[in-house]
């Protein structure tokens, strides 16, 4: 479903007189449809940058990302027009980070329900589904109409995850979505991800927890050491 060929990311910092910073050295891997690929390696090897290049938050310096899209067929993500990337993000591609990226001053229930509303689901129905999902992720119903900015790190992460999975994407990018969860919450998240995979979602993920990697992943890609440019 997704093939990465000789993908490479270098940052050129004009603020620092054109200094080049290596994001990650050339990598290649293939993720078959319906499987999960784990990215592994020490911090600083550019695992998160790979996910950002796939999501197009980062522009790749060279190489190719080929993706078999439901809407557009076989496409190259690094060259796709921006409005098509946005369409993919709405319909096919989800991205969950360890940081809460949702909007301020929106009640958590609406934050989670929003992707469904965008997809044309009736607002009250979407909110009901969001409430059930949050319950399952052990976010107390009393918190559902509060703003997530006031939440703890672990609660924010679960809100992020709920928002990404309420309408299961075809391709899910996960960047340490369990980094600050307790064991009980982590079990629920794992359960949810296993279910999604069974229903056909393809995943590329970073987990520092090796046991999750082992239970969820079909394949592990070890990030190569960075070649340092002078």
């Amino acid at each position: 479903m997704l093939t990465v060929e000789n993908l490479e990311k270098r940052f050129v910092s004009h603020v620092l007189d054109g200094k080049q910073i290596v994001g990650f050295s050339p990598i290649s891997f293939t993720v078959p449809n319906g499987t999960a690929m784990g990215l592994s390696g020490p911090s600083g090897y550019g695992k998160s940058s790979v996910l950002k290049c796939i999501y197009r938050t980062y522009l790749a310096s060279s190489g190719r990302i080929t993706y078999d899209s439901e809407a557009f067929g076989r496409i190259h993500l690094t060259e796709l027009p921006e409005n098509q990337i946005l369409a993919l993000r709405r319909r096919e591609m989800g991205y969950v980070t360890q940081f809460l990226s949702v909007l301020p001053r929106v009640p958590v229930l609406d934050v989670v329900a929003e992707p469904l509303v965008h997809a044309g689901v009736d607002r009250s129905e979407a909110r009901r589904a969001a409430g059930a999902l949050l319950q399952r992720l052990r976010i107390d119903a009393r918190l559902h109409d509060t703003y997530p900015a006031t939440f703890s790190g672990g609660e924010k992460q679960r809100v992020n995850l709920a928002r990404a999975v309420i309408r299961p994407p075809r391709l899910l990018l996960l960047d340490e979505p369990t980094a600050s969860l307790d064991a009980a919450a982590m079990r629920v998240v794992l359960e949810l991800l296993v279910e999604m995979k069974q229903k056909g979602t393809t995943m590329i993920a970073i987990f520092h927890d090796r046991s999750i990697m082992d239970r969820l992943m079909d394949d592990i890609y070890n990030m190569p050491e960075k070649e340092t440019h002078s």
Partner: protein
Amino acid sequence: MKPILRVRELTKRYGPGCPDCFDLTGAGQGTNQCPRCKSILACRQVSFDLFPNEVLGVVGESGSGKSTVVRLLHFDFEPTAGRFYLDLKAGQQSGSALAIDPDQDLFALSAFHRRRIRNERMGIVYQNARMGLHLKVSAGGNIAERLLMAGWRHVGRMQSRAAQLLEQTEVPVRRMNEPPRNFSGGMQQRVQIAKALSTQPAVLLLDEVTTGLDVSVQARVLDLIRSLQQELGVATIVVSHDLGVIRLLTSRTIVMRHGCIVEAGLSDQILEDPQHPYTQLLVNSVL
């Protein structure tokens, strides 16, 4: 997906112009003033598309030409060169029956025709409420005037539409008959937004709408714009020097400097992986 709005090589020059203007100005030259003929190129050869439902950001420092671009699109003054197309079939149906040929350059139309397009199909909100409102005329009257220009004739219907819009933009309806000069800055902006949306425009132009407001008021106005945009899905151009506004409202962004577009991309890419030296400086300058 087809764009609802296309702008091609839009240029606005103040001054006589000379054959060297384009070579001697721009982001690479570090100025928008031609050293030979002293003309100012407020914006030069600016081209972009706006898609249905989309919010596009235009960011840059003062003098970069970003406001000039949206005001040219609102026909506030004449461009020196450039073409501008609206394809209303690409977007959702709006209130007006005015038809526009998608291949017609709107700058080539008569002033009368352009005024009709502006009144019935476009809405603008300015940084300064004085530019968008008659501050001594009641809030309801301001909206009614706009409806009148768009061909509404029934006073009762105009009144109820004005009340509905003010309610939607969180302006207390009981203050509808008061002039906006009695209102706070944030409330004046909300009246402007109500007026801009009154004719169900196909394109909404927001020119530094929260600049100069208190932070808490800014947040409320931005939340309002965001929720209205989600509800109505009107294609919107947001001009701002504030990257926070860009992050909150837009999905794509154009970066302007010295009258030129120096970078364009997805908003998260512009903010997290800026390519152009000026964009990097801008992103690195956030407090």
